C-alpha cells in the first residue's frame, strides 16, 4: 500500500506517495525528476546513486524510501546550487575528472561529504572518501587530483 512520505529534499519540504520499499533512488528520479542521481549497479557497490541523508553519504539504491521519512536529503542538484560547489566543479573540469559522466554526480557528492568533514584531506583521505565510487573511464587519478585541487582552492579563499 502506498503511504505518504515527507522529507526535505535540497532544502525544500516535499511529500510523495510511494510504496515504502520503493528505492529512494527511484522516487528522486521518477517522482521528483531529480535525474542527476544515477543508477549504476543497484546494489551499493558503485556509488553512482550517492546522496546525502542528514549530511551523511548514502547510496540511494539501498534506501527504502520509507526510511527517508523525516530526513533531509541532498542530491547532486542540491549540492550544485551551493556556492562552495564552484571550486569542485572547476577542479573537475581542469583536471579531467569527468569523462562519460555517469559516475560524476556520485563522485562529487562523495567529495562534498568528505570535504565537509575534512576540509584539508590527505591523499589517503581522498582515496578513502571516494573508495565507494567506481569510474570506468578516468582511471581515478584525475578525480583524486580534482578533489585535492578543490580543497586547496577552497582553503586559499
Amino acid at each position, binding site marked *: 500500500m502506498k503511504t505518504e512520505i515527507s522529507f526535505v529534499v535540497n532544502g525544500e519540504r516535499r511529500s510523495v506517495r510511494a*510504496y*515504502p*520499499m*520503493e*528505492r529512494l533512488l527511484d522516487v528522486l528520479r521518477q517522482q521528483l525528476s531529480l535525474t542527476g542521481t544515477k543508477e549504476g549497479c*543497484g*546494489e*551499493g*557497490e558503485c*556509488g553512482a546513486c*550517492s546522496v546525502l541523508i542528514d549530511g*551523511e*553519504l*548514502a*547510496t540511494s*539504491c*539501498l*534506501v*527504502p524510501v*520509507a*526510511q527517508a*521519512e523525516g530526513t533531509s536529503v541532498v542530491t547532486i542538484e542540491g549540492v550544485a546550487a551551493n556556492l562552495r560547489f564552484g571550486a569542485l566543479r572547476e577542479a573537475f573540469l581542469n583536471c579531467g575528472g569527468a569523462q562519460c559522466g555517469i559516475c560524476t554526480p556520485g563522485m562529487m557528492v*562523495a567529495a562534498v*561529504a*568528505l570535504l565537509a568533514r575534512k576540509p584539508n584531506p590527505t591523499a589517503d583521505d581522498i582515496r*578513502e*572518501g571516494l*573508495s*565507494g*565510487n*567506481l569510474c570506468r573511464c578516468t582511471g581515478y587519478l584525475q578525480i583524486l587530483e580534482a578533489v585535492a585541487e578543490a580543497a586547496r582552492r577552497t582553503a586559499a579563499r
Partner: protein
Amino acid sequence: MRADPTEYEFVAPASFVDAVQLLAEQPAAWLPIAGGTDVMVQFAAGTLGARKLLSIWNLPELRHIEVLPEEVRIGAGSTYTDLRRHETVGREFPLLTLAASWTGGIANQNRGTLGGNIVNASPAADSLPALLAYEAELILVSARRERRVPYLDFHTGYKKIALEPDELVRAICLKRRFAGYVSYGRKVGARNAQAIAKVSIAGLGRVEKGQVADVRIALGSVAPTPIRLRQTERVLEGRALDRDAIGQARGAAVAETHPIDDIRSTARYRAAVVGNLVGEFLETLGGATGHE
C-alpha cells in the same frame, strides 16, 4: 530481477519496545531491516524471501554506545561510522574500529550496522573476528525476557545464529580489559574498499617477561563461521615468540582452518595467507613487547 516494491509490507515502529512487541505478536513474520546494506542487496537481486519488513533503523535505543566502568555496550544499530568516530571504542577496541574501516565504502559504513553484520552471519563479515578476539557478549531482547550470550556461542554455523524468532539483538558488550594488549588486524581482499575478504584476521595478545601471557587469534573467511584458533593459541601459551614457536603456530593455524575454493579465492591461497597473517601477527606481538 529486482523485486517489486508493491509486494512488500513495511513498518517502522517508533521505539525498540514497539518493535519487540510486534515480534512478540507475530514471531518470524517480520524481517528486521536496519541500514539495508544486506537486505536491500537481496531485494535488488530478487532473492529476499521475506515480504514483511520491520525497520529498526535509527531507533535511539539501538543507536547508542554506552561506556560503563566495566564494559562498553554498543547498541546493535550503531553504524560502522559510529564505531569509527567513537573515541573510547577507538582507544580500547582498535580491532573493531579497524574492521569498521574495512567495510564497503563510506556510504556503506554510514548505513551498515554492527548488529546487522552479526545477524547476517557471513563467515566473511569484517567485524566478527574482532568480536571473537574481544570475547564480546550479546544482549538479546524479546517481550518475554532479556538474555546475555557470548558471541562465540551465538554464531552456530554457516549463516546460522541462535536468535529466537521473537528476539532482537540490542547491544554488543565488550569488557574493558585490554589495556596493554597488542592488536593486529588485517583484511586480505581484491582491493581495499568494496571487497569481501579472502581472509581476515583479528589478533590480540599480551607478552609478559618474554612469554605469551594471553593470545587470541580470530579469522574470517576460512571456515563456515568466523573462528577462534584455540589450538594455535594453546601452542603459544607461556612460550617465547621465537622462530620455533611462530613456525609451530603457523602450522597449527593452517591445520585448524578449513578454507574452501570459491568465487573470491582458493583454499590453497587462503591456507598460505592464514600462515602468513598468523606469522605477521606473532612477529608484531613479539617485536612490540620485546623491548620492555
